[in-house]
């Protein structure tokens, strides 16, 4: 469900790839055909894809925690069952994405260990606390909306297993977005307490939401290679602008005030203007120093440790680990 904010630090060309194979590989992508696990691929392509899909999978499994904070308190049957199904989907999407990344040669367990040990990153936005039910509704609607902008773009990428996973995830997430919007409409049309609860949530969550798509193009490491290989499908600012185009009107329609007086669409350029997000905070949060980073990883580690006796009892020498096929 969540993507974006993927950081491709310091991409340097790997050791020389076989030029003939590289030409065939690039011609295939040029024709719009997908790369499959058994194809030859440049080392850099494999490395960046593992990083990207792994970060997306981690974002899903960690993303289940801030919304999961409200799973036992969802008000009424409709919200309770929807939130149970939605948080379950996040775990389900993590399972799909880890499988897609496993086809590139890294086992799920190594990926989860790297997550827990802080070696592997995940989306900035899940390191913030969900103080109220309205915070949870903000995630269900707008963070989901942001993730879908990224995922629809990535679904047109070049790696087959990731596209298959994203096709399924995007189909399943249409319910998430509508559920989230439905919740926020009821808050907007509700009592003064409900309206204020969401306005407060919007004030808290807008800055991390602007960080969600990653550093602005001016300062982010820009890689033509990853664009050519359809690993990176659009610039961070493109994604951010798409999101603002689609959702700022919907937020304002409900009578809420977005906490950035400069936020405005420049009709000539067709681009949104806004207060420059604080990219220092973004780096700090991505690298482990946000309000809930420690709790998220501690909870994930506890789930792994408490489940170890189950996995060890299930493990049998006969059914040894194998990379998924597709």
């Amino acid at each position, binding site marked *: 469900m969540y993507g974006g904010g993927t950081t491709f630090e310091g991409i340097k060309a790997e050791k020389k790839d076989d030029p003939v194979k590289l030409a065939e590989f690039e011609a295939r992508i040029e024709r719009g055909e997908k790369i499959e696990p058994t194809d030859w691929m440049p080392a850099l392509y494999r490395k960046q894809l593992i990083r990207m899909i792994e970060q997306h999978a981690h974002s899903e499994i960690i993303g289940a925690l801030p919304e999961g904070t409200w799973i036992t308190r*969802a*008000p*009424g049957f409709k*919200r309770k069952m929807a939130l149970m199904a939605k948080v379950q989907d996040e775990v389900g999407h993590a399972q799909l994405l880890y499988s897609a990344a496993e086809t590139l040669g890294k086992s799920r367990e190594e990926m989860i260990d790297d997550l827990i040990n802080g070696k592997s990153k995940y989306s900035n936005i899940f390191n913030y606390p969900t103080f109220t039910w309205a915070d949870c509704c903000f995630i269900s609607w707008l963070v989901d909306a942001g993730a879908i902008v990224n995922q629809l773009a990535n679904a047109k990428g070049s790696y087959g297993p990731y596209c298959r996973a994203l096709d399924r995830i995007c189909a399943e997430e249409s319910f998430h977005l509508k559920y989230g919007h439905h919740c926020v409409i*009821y808050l907007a049309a509700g009592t003064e307490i*409900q309206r204020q609860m969401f306005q407060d949530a919007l004030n808290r969550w807008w800055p991390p939401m602007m960080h969600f798509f990653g550093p602005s193009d001016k300062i982010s490491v820009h890689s033509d290679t990853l664009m050519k290989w359809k690993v990176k499908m659009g610039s961070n600012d493109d994604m951010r602008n798409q999101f603002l185009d689609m959702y700022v009107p919907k937020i304002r329609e409900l009578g809420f005030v977005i906490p950035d007086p400069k936020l405005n669409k420049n009709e000539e350029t067709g681009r949104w203007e806004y207060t420059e997000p604080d990219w220092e905070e973004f780096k700090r949060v991505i690298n482990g120093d946000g309000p809930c980073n420690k709790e998220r990883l501690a909870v994930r580690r506890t789930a792994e440790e408490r489940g170890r006796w189950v996995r060890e009892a299930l493990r049998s020498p006969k059914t040894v680990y194998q990379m998924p096929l597709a």
Partner: protein
Amino acid sequence: MDKKVEEIIKQTQLQLTDLKLQKPVFGGRSGKHSEHLQPLLDEMSEVFRSDPSAEW
């Protein structure tokens, strides 16, 4: 419902103590509960009760 509990337990190394020796824990059916239920209900209805006139 063909799988019988005994059948399942027999396929494991678990022992099933004699049920007649068990002293059933009754009371729930007539509203007499453990100390765990009310906190569960308070937590579950926290948002619901935060604004009783609201529609969520």
